[in-house]
């Protein structure tokens, strides 16, 4: 029997805890870092406001929270908020023995960090609340060029410490034209250091990354190269990984890869959504379109921009008639929106004519 969800919201909420960051990543897509100030910052939510939002979201059926930023660890009250989330009860829906079932349990918790402030004490506190940890590793030799900060050594060390502490970790690698030459070494280093999984993202223009995008953007052959490298590393390591940002199916056939999951469908508003540091809802972290403040969350439900995503009314006209259209959104819709000016603009990797 089908189950009516507790609300219209998808089951994962990405909570951008702060606008602040202690890295200056060139590839960062946080919209408030765009040099032209197109996404103004407002006052950040207080501890009490975040706790209230998390409690309400649990009532609305949200079963997973990902804490990010900016750099979430820059907030002194982060663990106070995480502790609150950990004691909330969330409804989980799963298929068991051929039937849809629900059960109440603690929400899944994730921290997405650049790793700079992660210490052994941080790891112990994350373990206390069973928080999964993702840390960024955008290259080895190119780490400083990409982040403007230190070297990769600290992040690699913390992957090892996290493993020793019993935490599940993900190594986030944003792939650019500048670090693809050392992608094999970067992925291998993350896994050898102790990361459980790899999450790759191809660089997509947005936020600070709008400046100098040309020197970081990868093309179609590089995308294939990137996936082939990841498949090779993961096969050798006996691990699995995924490509976080969806790609046009005409550029990457998911069936070709056994170890790396390649997404071709946008999951914004369908599987996750974002609440920004001042409490505004967005369809995804890439989006520079603020919908409504959480205080007016019900207005989001039938907001035209939101429903464009829930009903997939954004396929580029260039993809019209493509045989893969039912299983492909023509790449990242928000990056296409930012670059092309419209939600149905073609991806930075334009459609390949062979499928049309």
């Amino acid at each position, binding site marked *: 029997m089908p189950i009516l969800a507790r609300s219209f919201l998808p089951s994962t909420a990405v909570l951008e805890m702060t606008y602040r960051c202690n890295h200056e990543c060139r590839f960062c897509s946080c919209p408030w870092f765009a040099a032209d100030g197109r996404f103004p910052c407002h006052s950040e939510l207080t501890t009490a406001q975040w706790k209230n939002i998390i409690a309400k979201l649990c009532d609305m059926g949200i079963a997973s929270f990902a804490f990010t930023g900016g750099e979430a660890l820059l907030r002194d009250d982060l663990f106070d908020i995480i502790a609150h989330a950990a004691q909330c009860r969330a409804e989980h829906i799963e298929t068991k023995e051929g*039937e849809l079932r629900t059960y109440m349990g603690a929400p899944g918790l994730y921290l997405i960090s650049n790793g700079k402030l992660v210490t052994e004490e941080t790891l112990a506190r994350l373990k206390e609340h069973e928080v999964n940890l993702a840390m960024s590793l955008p290259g080895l030799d190119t780490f400083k060029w990409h982040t403007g900060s230190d070297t990769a050594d600290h992040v690699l060390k913390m992957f090892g410490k996290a493993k020793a502490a019993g935490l599940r970790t993900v190594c986030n690698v944003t792939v650019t034209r500048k670090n693809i030459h050392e992608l094999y070494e970067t992925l291998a280093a993350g896994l050898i250091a102790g990361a459980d999984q790899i999450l790759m993202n191809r660089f997509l223009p947005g936020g600070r990354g709008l400046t100098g995008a040309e020197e970081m953007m990868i093309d179609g052959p590089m995308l294939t190269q990137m996936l082939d490298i990841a498949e090779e590393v993961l096969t050798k390591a006996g691990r699995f990984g995924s490509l976080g940002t969806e790609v046009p199916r005409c550029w990457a056939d998911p069936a070709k890869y056994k170890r790396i999951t390649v997404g071709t469908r946008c999951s914004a508003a369908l599987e996750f959504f974002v609440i920004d540091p001042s409490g505004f809802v967005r369809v995804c972290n890439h989006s520079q379109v603020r919908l409504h403040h959480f205080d007016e969350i019900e207005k989001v439900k039938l907001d035209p921009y939101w429903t464009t995503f829930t009903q997939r009314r954004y396929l580029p006209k260039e993809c019209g008639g493509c045989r893969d259209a039912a299983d492909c959104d023509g790449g990242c819709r928000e990056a296409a929106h930012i670059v092309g000016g419209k939600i149905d603009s073609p991806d930075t990797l334009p459609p390949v004519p062979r499928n049309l």
Partner: protein
Amino acid sequence: MAAVLSIIAVILLAGALFFVTQKIPDEPPPPPKPPSTCTGTEVTVEGIKSLQKCQVEDLLRAVENSKPRQFTTTAMCYSVGMEEYAPVSYVCPICGSRTQHDGGTAKRIKENLYDIRKSFYQLYQGSPLKLDLDESSLCSKCSKGTNGPQEKGQYLTIYYADGTIFTKMIDNARELDALRGLLEEREWVRDKNNEAIFIRDKTYDLRKFLDLPKTGEKN
């Protein structure tokens, strides 16, 4: 001898290039309209502007009586692997509510929902037959308290001019593509995989689909 071989090679190469570069042709324009055998008095229910059943029959009969045409198509095999389907969310386009589905319904949503919507939209535009696509059985909120169908899915309703209303669950977009071909009086149409659906080969299925008697049967 070498010159003859070169000429043969050039011809073969040109032939190969032709097959490599040839584009899939556009759907053919409708042929001239056959004379109508629909002689019954037009009965229209107030407020409903649609085709009569016999007019749809006319279209089918014209296709069935046409000469078969030889087409060369490339066979394509699909390997269909059954997998365990995780719950799938259906977000209602009317009320915005989210319903979780599993099993066969989840599979249908995942594989066919958007294709069916797209094909219905193409069919609906300019269709002389009054049609409606109803997905409300997939939304637990919209279907609450209604005597909706047992099986959750996308339902096509056809309103014939004589007041007959026929509703059918759509399994895949090809059924709608074939109906579009029939109503637009085309010889064939393309489906989402760019494969041709020859209307003449689909008349049996279309009769079943449209709730019309098989050839030779009487109403």
